[in-house]
């Protein structure tokens, strides 16, 4: 018995409380599986429990590898959930639905055009003015006689099905719709985890739609630029849908920028690239309208670009979607859409909306007043269903301003199976469809983002499979194969903020790796966590612990303490802390990095999550992840960003070698101890083998110093790190071969090259003062070099901030 048939048997029971019967996406009313699912149940993927669980496990692993996250409003970053069973739309159903979606986008665009233009809908009484003018999405900043053109380019529409299978619009998402990135990622994951497609009809691939979207954006460009520059404006990695935005930017091959990366000059938008300004033609906006321009919109916003609204109004840039499109998300518009469609498009509305009543109409309010508490009441501005458990507050709010509220029966969502704790259970689902501008009309994506709902909120996603009529039907119904698109080949553009993040990426990655190696070089760790051996009596261990910033008092030194050096994010200089910082900068430049970076993080995450008593095993697994990370970045395109990353890595390595030596070998110790200290230092610098080969195990400090300071052939030496730094530095756009960072480096290289190692090794008292001074000097110069580098290459100036230039003064 397959899991699906079990589900069908369970689903066919009449609803327990006699509630309204919902449409089941998989099971027909007669209890049999719907047609496309019959093949699924009988096909290669028999959907026995074990198969499903295997697929679910793979999906989870892929999502983890790809680092897919979602952040709840106000919450922390959470893993993205994808249920293995897709929502399936047959070719026949899609034919109807796609026509409705295209019409809806056209209609919404026409509504926006009218509301910010001739206002025929208000003048002729088709829409009540207070419904529109009291909505916070109505932006007076763009409601001016002088206007830009089409404002709606990407539309999302949340759908459900009635018990009879009729699609219904629940909500329109217009002002900065999210989810396309997730939808594309979901498909990437399911196509890897579920192969071959177990349905009897082929599924529309999503990839061919990407050029359509890119063309829609390029087509929005105001100038007749042959190669319009498109950017995605993001609020940053703290955004709820940061992954969605970064993934979309990556797929489209457009830079992911923040407000600070853009500047308005001469009424046009420019991007800071390589020390100069490049014109931007289209801004795909994921910052909410209110936060997009501190000059004319919210003055306290640090996410926007001052002057952006003016540039858009002048038509020198096109912001997609337009600032005013939030007005279309008003649920109070839904009951008027039939009439609006007749008025503006002169045709009947194809896709009905869920029944909703606008309470601003006195007759409607009078009719519903006594039933309000049994209905779902929500504000037109959003914010969810009002709490019916506080009836007085609800009724008072509605009576005070009825035009601000709508009421409707609770939505009966369609149902579908969801894999939960190994079995298929029925859950409520919704489908978000996407439609983009295409020529003079709109084109829907044959696919979408499915959601598993609990109390109306999404708790997991589902892939959406739109089936083809036949195998010969082209993907997405696009007869022409996708042509190479305008911006696809362009290398990601590195604005100073991106260079800065990649530079720190390099530094943290190197720091984490160095930390793990130092930890593994601790004799106590290497020999199976022999805590006795890192008692205060062992200067070699002490020296390395100093490098790790772990100076626990003898009494505190237990296994937990030792683990904290690796795993405690709050402990300064711990490996975990470097990893957290590393991941944060990686998230902020996600579009610049290969997907493999997230696979490497998945390795370190799993190592940390499964950390047991054997610290060495955990540390080694973390090291494997970090080495994978290194491999990933080594194979990046060698562009500006990569060179900034290289500078970060080389600089950090130089600093770490110096710090290691000054903590370990500047003090002279008895020969037997010295030997162990040297071993530990060589272990931490991955140089044991080389040293042994050259010096046959003899402990000579000069040999060690040569290997770690001046040997250009040892990649772990200071000299090699500086050479690498020089190569990367020279390739950056602001370098002139005589810039300050280059001059500082040149001096330092000469100094390191010319140093007299035997002099450094000389001892006076117990200390090697020459070595101490040299290392201190090198550290100081590296720090100055880092500062000079940051100032020249990474800084883009102070952030704009709002000033109310004139406060009121009154007579």
């Amino acid at each position, binding site marked *: 018995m397959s899991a699906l048939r079990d589900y069908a048997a369970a689903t066919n029971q009449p609803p327990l409380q006699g509630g309204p019967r919902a449409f089941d996406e998989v099971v027909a009313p007669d209890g049999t599986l719907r047609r496309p699912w019959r093949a699924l149940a009988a096909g290669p993927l028999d959907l026995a429990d074990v198969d499903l669980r295997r697929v679910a496990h793979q999906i989870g692993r892929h999502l983890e590898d790809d680092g897919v996250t979602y952040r709840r409003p106000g919450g922390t970053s959470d893993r993205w959930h994808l249920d293995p069973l897709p929502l399936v739309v047959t070719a026949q159903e899609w034919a109807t639905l796609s026509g409705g979606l295209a019409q809806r986008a056209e209609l919404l665009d026409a509504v926006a055009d009218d509301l910010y233009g001739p206002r025929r809908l208000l003048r002729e009484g088709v829409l009540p003015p*207070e419904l529109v003018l*009291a909505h916070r999405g109505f932006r007076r900043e763009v409601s*001016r006689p002088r206007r830009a053109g089409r404002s709606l380019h990407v539309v999302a529409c949340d759908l459900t099905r009635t018990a009879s299978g009729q699609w219904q619009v629940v909500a329109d998402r217009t002002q900065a719709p999210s989810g396309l990135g997730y939808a594309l990622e979901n498909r990437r994951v399911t196509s890897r985890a579920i192969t071959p497609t177990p349905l009897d009809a082929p599924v529309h691939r999503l990839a061919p739609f990407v050029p359509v979207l890119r063309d829609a954006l390029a087509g929005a460009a105001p100038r007749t630029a042959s190669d319009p520059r498109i950017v995605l404006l993001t609020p940053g990695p703290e955004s709820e849908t940061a992954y969605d935005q970064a993934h979309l930017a990556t797929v489209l091959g457009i830079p992911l920028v923040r407000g600070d990366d853009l500047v308005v000059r001469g*009424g046009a938008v420019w991007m800071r690239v390589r020390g100069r300004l490049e014109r931007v033609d289209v801004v795909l906006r994921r910052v909410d309208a209110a936060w997009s321009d501190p000059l004319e919109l919210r003055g306290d916003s640090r996410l926007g670009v001052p002057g952006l609204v003016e540039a858009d109004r002048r038509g020198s840039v096109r912001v997609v979607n337009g600032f005013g499109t939030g007005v279309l998300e008003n649920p109070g518009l839904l009951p008027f859409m039939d009439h609006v469609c007749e008025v503006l498009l002169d045709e009947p509305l194809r896709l009905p909306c869920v029944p909703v009543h606008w309470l601003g109409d006195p007759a409607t309010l009078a009719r519903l007043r006594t039933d309000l508490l049994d209905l779902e009441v929500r504000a037109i501005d959003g914010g969810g269903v009002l709490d019916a458990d506080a009836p007085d507050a609800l009724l008072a709010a509605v009576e005070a301003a009825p035009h601000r509220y709508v009421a409707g029966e609770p939505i009966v969502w369609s149902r579908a199976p969801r894999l939960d704790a190994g079995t298929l259970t029925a859950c409520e689902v919704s489908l978000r469809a996407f439609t983009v501008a295409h020529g003079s009309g709109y084109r829907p994506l044959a696919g979408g983002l499915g959601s598993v709902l609990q109390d109306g909120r999404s708790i997991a996603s589902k892939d959406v499979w739109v089936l083809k009529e036949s195998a010969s039907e082209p993907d997405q119904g696009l007869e022409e194969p996708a042509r190479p698109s305008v911006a696809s080949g362009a290398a990601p553009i590195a604005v100073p903020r991106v260079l800065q993040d990649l530079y720190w990426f390099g530094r943290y990655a190197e720091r984490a790796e160095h930390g793990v190696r130092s930890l593994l070089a601790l004799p106590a760790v290497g020999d199976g966590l022999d805590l006795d051996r890192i008692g205060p009596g062992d200067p070699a261990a002490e020296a390395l612990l100093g490098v790790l910033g772990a100076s626990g008092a003898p009494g505190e030194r237990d296994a937990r303490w030792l683990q904290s050096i690796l795993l405690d994010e709050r402990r300064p200089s711990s490996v975990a802390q470097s990893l957290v910082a590393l991941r944060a900068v990686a998230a902020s430049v996600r579009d610049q990095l290969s997907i493999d970076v997230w696979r490497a993080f998945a390795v370190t995450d799993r190592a940390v999550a499964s950390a047991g008593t054997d610290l060495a095993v955990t540390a080694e697994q973390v090291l494997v992840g970090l080495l994978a990370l290194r491999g990933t970045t080594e194979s990046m395109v060698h562009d500006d960003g990569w060179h900034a990353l290289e500078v970060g890595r080389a600089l950090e390595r130089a600093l770490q070698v110096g710090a290691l030596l000054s903590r370990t070998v500047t003090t002279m110790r008895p020969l037997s101890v010295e030997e162990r200290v040297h071993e530990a230092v060589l272990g931490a610098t991955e140089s044991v083998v080389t040293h042994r080969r050259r010096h046959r195990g003899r402990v000579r400090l000069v040999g060690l110093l040569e290997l770690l300071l001046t040997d250009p052939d040892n990649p772990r030496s200071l000299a090699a790190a500086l050479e690498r730094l020089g190569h990367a530095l020279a390739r950056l756009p602001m370098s002139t071969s005589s810039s300050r960072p280059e001059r500082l480096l040149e001096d330092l290289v000469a100094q390191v090259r010319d140093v007299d190692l035997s002099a450094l090794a000389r001892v006076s008292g117990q200390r090697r003062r020459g070595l101490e001074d040299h290392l201190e000097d090198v550290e100081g110069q590296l720090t100055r070099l880092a500062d000079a580098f940051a100032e020249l290459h990474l800084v883009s100036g*102070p952030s704009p901030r709002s000033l109310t230039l004139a406060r009121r003064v009154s007579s």
Partner: protein
Amino acid sequence: MRWHVRHRTRYTYDDVVTDSYGHAVLLPRDVPGQRVLSAQVDVDPVAVDRSEDIDHFGNRVTYLQVDVPHTRLTVEADLDVEVEPASIDPEALGAPWEAARPRALDGVPAWEVVELALESPSIGHGGAVLDYARPSFPPGRALGEAARDLMHRVHDDFAYEPGTTSVTSTIDDVLAARAGVCQDFAQLMIACLRSQGLAARYVSGYLATDPPPGRERVVGADATHAWVAVWTPAGEWLALDPTNDQPVGERYVTIAWGREYADVSPLKGVIVSEASSSELEVQVDVLPA
């Protein structure tokens, strides 16, 4: 009367400002009873980019950007305006106030003023406002009479005290403090009118003042001002000044109107700078021309 208005705003910063973006509502508009003879806005340092536009309410707005490093920014408006006593249809003022509620009118093309009868971001009209407004609006009272009565009461009940409120004060703050400045009185009166379903707008401009008897006129002693206009079913606007308890006449120069202060703030801006403090100096002169 002809008036010459000079309105100078000067910002002084403690560090160099590299870029400065501004949005100014300083140019007057033609309105019934007011003719603009000349008007200009000068910016020092010179704005590299500026453009004029008409906003949602029909006001003249100016966008400007200064991109030369500066530590002082001056924006000066110079206006010549001719003002006559506005005449307003007495019949509409004599009709019951209930007839002037735009949302209650069927078939009358009043949709354009509906937004001025609704709450706006900083002018709500909850319980306290409603209670305060009610005594001025007994059923059937003439619109003009009701509005003037409200103006008298706001003038009598509230003390003119700069410093008791700030730009972010709410209507309820003003009601509780029983004090404020012209902006507060105007917004409170607007809230009261809207709480009764009437359409009211916030008007910004200038009021010509006379020096105290026997004293010389002090340069820059005048100020920006704000008052209220209430809509009549004749499509006209009755302008009243609750701060001075008088109807708006030929000593008033109108610049712009909107739902509330934020729609017409004379100058707002964004600077790009490390500056930590700034000093603001505003000088206004309204002189007979």
